């Protein structure tokens, strides 16, 4: 076990210890906040797979967050509360949409890829806005959280917390395995040198598209979790700023690192929460926190290129 893996383990152990500690201090707010952090971490992990390891700068990853959330919301709206079915549809529908968007966008690269993924997500956003049946602009409330035939009750904050935690650990483990596999090796090769990858007889397209679909499916699951977390969903889940935030999480945490997306999600959400709600800060900071967030974002991109994972102890090459 490298020291980096050990650090990641320590972070996960700390996360596992949150519910009893929060219960002891009677601070349920932190349970909610960290659950939110972990859900976004799962979304960021999925983005890191294609952005970090595959070099595909997707500026539209919020689309799958939205599709996952809408899969839960729409089925629930029609009276189907079965969680297995809802989450299965969330993953399947996200994979299908990722396959459709990917089959067009993965053929392009660079700036075209960025703009196309952004534009398709915007299209889905407008689709969400224009369907009045599912609340249109205002979105809709989730009356009943996903039901898992009595196995686990999502209305219990602690049980929900550990479910999200388990999915997070599984996502970290699975993406690590994917990246280390032969498939992952080719994916990383297409990022570092496409011409050489072709020269040794591998066509990048199927590898990139597969990674794109896997990433979309995992992000769809995060969307299903997010819908249950907020018990509410709106087209805003697919807003382009959300895609930008996901990208920022990956960069802030440290691109193409295992722990990066988790650190980045924690970093950004806790920063947002602090700027908005920390009473020590003066009123003019709290009210216009986005101004400061914007400046911090620019500074991080310009000067902190290795991200938070670069600050962790351990070897720098994973």
């Amino acid at each position, binding site marked *: 076990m490298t020291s980096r893996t050990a650090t990641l383990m320590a972070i996960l152990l700390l996360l596992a210890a949150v519910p009893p500690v929060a219960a002891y201090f009677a601070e349920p707010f932190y349970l909610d906040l960290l659950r939110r952090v972990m859900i976004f971490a799962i979304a960021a992990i999925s983005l890191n797979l294609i952005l970090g390891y595959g070099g595909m700068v997707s500026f539209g990853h919020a689309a799958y967050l939205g599709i996952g959330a809408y899969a839960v919301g729409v089925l629930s709206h029609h009276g189907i509360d079965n969680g297995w079915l809802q989450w299965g549809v969330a993953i399947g529908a996200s994979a299908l949409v990722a396959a459709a968007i990917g089959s067009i966008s993965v053929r392009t690269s660079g700036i075209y890829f*960025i703009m196309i993924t*952004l534009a398709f997500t*915007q299209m889905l956003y*407008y689709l969400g806005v224009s369907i009045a049946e599912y609340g249109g602009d205002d979105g809709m409330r989730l009356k009943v959280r996903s039901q898992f035939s009595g196995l686990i009750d999502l209305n219990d904050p602690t049980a929900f917390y550990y479910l999200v935690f388990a999915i997070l650990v599984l996502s970290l483990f699975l993406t690590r395995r994917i990246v280390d596999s032969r498939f992952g090796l080719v994916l990383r090769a297409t990022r570092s040198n496409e011409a050489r990858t072709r020269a040794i007889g591998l066509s990048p397209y199927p590898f990139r598209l597969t990674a794109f679909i896997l990433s979309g499916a995992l992000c769809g699951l995060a969307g299903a979790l997010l819908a249950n977390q907020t018990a509410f969903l709106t087209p805003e889940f697919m807003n382009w700023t959300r895609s930008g935030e996901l990208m920022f999480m990956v960069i802030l945490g440290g691109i193409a690192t295992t722990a990066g997306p988790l650190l980045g999600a924690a970093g950004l959400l806790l920063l947002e929460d602090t700027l908005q709600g920390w009473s020590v800060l003066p009123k003019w900071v709290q009210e216009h926190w*986005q*101004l400061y967030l914007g400046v911090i974002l620019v500074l991080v*991109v310009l000067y902190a290129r290795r991200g938070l994972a670069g600050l962790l102890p351990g070897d720098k090459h994973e």
Partner: protein
Amino acid sequence: MDFTLVVEQTLNGLQLGVMLFLLAAGLTLVFGIMNLVNLAHGSLYMVGAYLATWFYQLTGSFALALVLGLAGTLLVGVVVELVALRTLYERDHLDQVLATFGLILFFNELIAILWGRAAIYSTLPEFLSGHVQLAGNLRYPLYRLLIIGVGLAVALLLWFVVSKTRLGMLIRAGASNRAMVAALGVDIRLLYTIVFGFGAALAGLAGLLAGPIFAVQPGMGEMILIQVFVVIVIGGIGSIRGAFLGALIVGMVDTLGRAFLKPALSAVISPAAGDAAGPALASMLIYLLMAAVLAFRPEGLFPVRGGS
């Protein structure tokens, strides 16, 4: 479907098209020459709209407000280039996207601090607020005709500057090989600043023209920016001609789709289908168009030849 409505909507499409062109031209120039993805281009559009509206309220003179608004946006653009964007030219697109995303948050909030979050409305001066009798019973707002005229004039001017002047020669040279241009003794940094300022001024012009007909509010830039992306992806990134034709196509498709898709679907399939699918399909139309174009021409309709 009556003829007057078709002509009116076509003019509306043309008007949206030239607005998109003003934004797309700056964005595509900056990308073609500096290889910079500038998401904050929409913020400059917003700055232009706010400055012009504010100066008009202060001075009471529409012409003066236009000049001051344009100069102000140019100034803001040059300052942004000098302070933040200059260091980004050598970075990859990911860093550029994120840093300029940060700039968007900054500008939207700054505008909210200065003028509030609610939309502000600007009025037209007396001499521009009338209608023009185009034919029979077709009356069209004079101001919208003016926008079309200004847009077409700017397109002509841009074509002239880029293909006939010394500055245009440097711009084209910079787009195809900047190292070579720098080696020949051209101050490439100055050229970059000029081009960026020029792009900013065009975005500001679009913003100040939009002021009196759209709601001027924080975030207005991003709504139109994503349409502009569709324009330059369809047209071919880096190509002014592509930006112009792409803008007209997108403007037309979007406007005519919103106006006629619902009645068309109602007539062809059923009124219920028209009501249900019309608005949704109309708002997705330009993105579907983009997908169709890319499926056949991944580099857009008018890719730039040669250049790097």
